[in-house]
Each structure stands twice: as structure tokens, then as C-alpha cells.
């Protein structure tokens, strides 16, 4: 109980003094609430799907099966079959592999470009910084989904183009965050001490600045992963994402829409898959930040 005030007026108190968090040596896992742990397990499961998805799928994801159209979930078909008789569960696993891997690729790509651009921009400053921020401004003036649509319309929907489009869309916000992190560190004495002892700019950026910006960037990477997933799903839904015959969760949702009343599992399974993975990633990130989202 707080010192004064008999009634339970706990507002108007000083903010809570921070306690040691995992950066100070406590384990990351210990700091998660039970919901955070569940979420982390889900993320892990998603990772396993990426690696083993194709192997453990009970049926083929692409073979048409005219005898078993729109079968409800059963022991044979865990999530039923779709309008072509394809096993939904297998399509989720195989499609998951494709979608998640692609999202991972997009995340890595945009993080690398964004981090390099942002950190150098923040540290070097000057005209280079101004130019970079101007370009980022311009790119952020166009809604991200629309840039992607434009790029895909012109270049087609192949995997490399998808990665390119997402990277183009995502590197500006990442660059901004990396830049801020670099700026915070750039003026601190230990960076200047490195200059005084004779280190070159590049060396300082990599040895002194980057390791300190890493935690912020890691969190951002997690966010970007869930954004990539959402954007790829939306593109898939609109028909501009991963192309058939590879199953894509977004596309599966769109294709299954017509059968929503008759066979809801065709739509709900991929929709739930997308939602659960994104939610799990977001929960883990949220908790890792200490709840101070």
C-alpha cells in the first residue's frame, strides 16, 4: 500500500521505478507472461512449418481430387477439402512454408537495406542524410500496398519481384528507426572517443554504433516480419502475390470466399492461420519490449 491517502486513490503517484530487465542479464523467457510463452510456442511452430511443412503434409497440396470436393473436416482430412478436392491442411502446411519463407526473405532484405541506409545516414549526417531522408519521405508518401501493386503490375509477380517490392516499401521506415538509433549513439562520448583514438568512420559505424542499435533493430525486424506477412497475404488475396500452383494463404482465402456458407472451413483455415501467426509474433514483440509498446 502506498504511504499516504487512506482511500484507494492510486492515481497521481509517481511512475513506477524501472526494475532490471532481460538486457541486464535476466533470461528472456523468464520475463514473458504465460500468454507471451504461448505466443512464442506458436511462433516456434510456424518456424517448424517452414522447415518441415512439405515433409509432414499428409496429402499433396496441388493434386485435384474430384471425388472429395468440399469435404468437411474429418479424421481423413483434418481441415477438410476445398472446391477442387485438395486437402486444406496440406495446403496450409505447404502454403505456409512458401508464405512464411517469403516473409522472412522480405524481412531480411528490407532490414539489411534499411539498417545500412539508416545507420550511415544518422552517423554521417550532412547532405547525404538529407538526400536519404528526402527519398524516404517520397517513398512514404505512397501507401505501401499501392507501390507494391505498381511494381508487380509492371514487373510481374515472381518471387524476386515480390521481395523487391516489399523491400522498396519497407526500407524507409526501417531506415528512419535505424537513423534515430544511430543519432542517439553518434553524439555520445564513447563514439567520439573512438574518433579521438583514430578510428575510421566505417569502423566506428560497425564496431561502436551498430551493436548499440541492434536491440532496437531486432524489435523492428519482428514487426516487419508481421507486416510482411500481412502485406503478402493482402497481395495474395488480390491475386498479385505468389502465383499458383504454389498455395498461398491469402489466395486461398480469396478462392474460398465463394463457398463461405456451404464450406466455411475453406476460408476460415487460411484466415485463421494468417491471423494466428501475426498475432503470435506481435505478442512476443510486445512482451519483449517490456509492455511499453
Amino acid at each position, binding site marked *: 500500500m502506498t504511504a499516504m491517502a487512506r482511500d484507494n486513490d492510486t492515481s497521481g503517484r509517481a511512475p513506477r521505478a524501472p526494475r532490471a530487465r532481460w538486457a541486464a542479464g535476466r533470461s528472456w523467457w523468464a520475463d514473458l507472461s504465460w500468454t507471451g510463452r504461448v505466443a512464442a510456442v506458436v511462433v516456434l511452430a510456424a518456424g517448424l512449418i517452414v522447415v518441415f511443412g512439405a515433409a509432414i503434409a499428409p496429402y499433396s497440396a496441388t493434386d485435384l481430387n474430384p471425388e472429395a470436393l468440399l469435404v468437411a473436416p474429418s479424421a481423413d482430412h483434418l481441415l477438410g477439402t476445398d472446391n477442387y478436392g485438395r486437402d486444406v491442411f496440406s495446403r496450409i502446411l505447404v502454403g505456409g512454408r512458401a508464405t512464411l519463407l517469403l516473409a522472412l526473405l522480405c524481412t531480411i532484405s528490407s532490414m539489411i537495406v534499411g539498417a545500412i541506409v539508416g545507420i550511415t545516414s544518422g552517423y554521417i549526417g550532412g547532405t547525404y542524410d538529407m538526400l536519404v531522408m528526402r527519398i524516404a519521405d517520397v517513398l512514404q*508518401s505512397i501507401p505501401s500496398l499501392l507501390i507494391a501493386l505498381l511494381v508487380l503490375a509492371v514487373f510481374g509477380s515472381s518471387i524476386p519481384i515480390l521481395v523487391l517490392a516489399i523491400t522498396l516499401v519497407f526500407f524507409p521506415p526501417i531506415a528512419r528507426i535505424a537513423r534515430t538509433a544511430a543519432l542517439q549513439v553518434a553524439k555520445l562520448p564513447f563514439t567520439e572517443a573512438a574518433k579521438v583514438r583514430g578510428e575510421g568512420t566505417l569502423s566506428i559505424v560497425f564496431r561502436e554504433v551498430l551493436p548499440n542499435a541492434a536491440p532496437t533493430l531486432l524489435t523492428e525486424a519482428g514487426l516487419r516480419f508481421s507486416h510482411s506477412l500481412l502485406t503478402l497475404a493482402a497481395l495474395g488475396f*488480390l491475386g498479385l502475390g505468389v502465383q499458383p500452383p504454389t498455395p498461398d494463404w491469402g489466395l486461398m482465402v480469396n478462392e474460398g470466399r465463394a463457398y463461405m456458407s456451404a464450406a466455411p472451413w475453406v476460408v476460415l483455415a487460411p484466415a485463421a492461420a494468417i491471423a494466428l501467426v501475426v498475432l503470435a509474433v*506481435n505478442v512476443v514483440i510486445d512482451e519483449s519490449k517490456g509492455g511499453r509498446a
Partner: protein
Amino acid sequence: MVRYAAQRVGLLLLTLALVALVIFTITSFLPTDAAETKLGILATPESLEFVRQQLGLDQPVLVRFWSWFGGALRGDFGTSLVFQTEIGPLVMARLANSAVLAGLVLLISVPLGIVLGMWAGSREGGAIDRIISWVTLTAFSFPEFVWAILLIFVFANILGVLPAASIITGSPFDDPAKLVMPVATATIVVLALTIRMMRQGTVQTLELDYVRTARLKGLSEWKVFRKHVMGNAIAPAVTATGTNVAYLLGSLAVVETIFSFPGIGSLTVQAANNRDVPLLAAAVLLTSAIVTTANLVADLIVVGLNPRLRKS
């Protein structure tokens, strides 16, 4: 202040020109150009040359860009490859419809988001805050099309109270029932984002020294909030709304498509699917213009609210 505003408007035009340049550059990579599309299988090297000259496609890149952008500023965007009509009036009509949707979404999500966000932030760690945090987290973790499908499933298929599609021929206000689900779908995510951002801003402001000073003067918590916290938390809210407009216009592409709503978003998607590049470029350019303008307005409001920036 007036000088600053003028500067920013100039900057806006520059940004728009650069945006147009980016769009134009991307479209210039098309393997087939307008002449080939126009002539189709009738193309011969000579006829292609002729049509190219006619369309002005033989001009250097920058000239072509300038004539396109210049035309755009006048409202002339050329002709759609697929619809074979003038793009200008088409996109304007669609834009008007989308404006209604976007306007309604912002009307609901901005005030509600600010209030709920501040409420959650002022009760940090409490039950209210935790519930709001969870609900918002779930809200923006589901893509819009999933929310749309759930809403359609419940309200159109099961309950049958709302129409599943929102095909509109006249004014959007003719049949308000058709607006409900599209607006609701887009609002879910935008509202969640606004709440989260306001919550964070409020929590951070409450930790500042001058809030402590106000409390220790003997002000009640409500007065502290009203006089010291709200004013300082509004500015980031305004900036974030500018960012949210960009997100909103992007998500409208999906939402309008699902509900078959005749807006600029669904038009963009159609154009992309049809590879109708002139239309696509025009739609994206117009949408970006709105985003940039919204950000400009937000920026001016923030500067106007801040006495420190106002005088410099």
C-alpha cells in the same frame, strides 16, 4: 508561421513531383509500350513507328515525364487502356466515393482513438489498459480482408441484416446500409493503431518532470491531465493521423475490392490486375497527393499548436 506554411506547400509540390517521377520510372520498365498495346496483332515495325510518334513515345524520357506530370496537374491523365475512357473523370468520381469512406473512418477512429488511448495510458497496467491493449493487438493482427470476411459471414450470411456487397451506382449516401461494413472493416485496424499510439504518448507524457510539478502543486489528477497532459499528447496524435491516412488509403484497396465498392482503391486493384498502366499510375499519383496533403495539414497543425515552434 505564414512563411513556414508557404515553404511547406512548396515542399509538397516538390515531393509530388518526385513521387510522380518514381511512379513514372517504375512504369517505364514495361516491356510493351502503349503503341504495341494499341495496335495489338496488327503491329508492324512501320505502323509502330507511326503510332509511337503520334503518342509522343519517341520523345526523351524527361520530356515524356514532364508532359505526363504537367497534364496530371491540369487534370488530364490520358486514356485508360482497358476502359477506353478518359482517366480524369473516372478517377475523380471514384475518389469522391472513397473520400466518403475514408472520411467516415477518420471521423470515428480519430476522436475515439484519442479518448480510448488516453484512458488506457492514464490507467497504465490496470485492467482497462490491459483489456484495451489486448483488443487492439488482436485487431491489427488480423488483415483487413479477414475482418471483412468475418463481418460478412456474421452480418450478411448468418444474420442477414447488412448487404454482402456494396455496389453503388449513385451517391454513396443513397443506401447507407452499404457503407456500414466497409467503414467498420477499415475502422477496426485504424482505430486500433490510433489507440495504441495515443496510449504510448500518454504514458510517456505522464512520466515527464512537469507532470510531477503539476501534481505536487496540489492539482487533482483530472486537472493535471486536462491542463498539462492532453495538450502535449495531442501533437503526436495529429502527426500519427497523417501517417494513418497513408495506411488507410492503402487498406481501402483491399476493403473496396472485397465489398465491390466503386472507389479509387478498387480501381487501383483492377488497373493492376489488367496491367492498365496509365490508369494505375494516375490512381497511385492521386492517392499519394492526398497522403502528402494530409501530412502537410497535420504538420501545420502541430506547428501551430506549439508555441516554441510557432515563433521561430
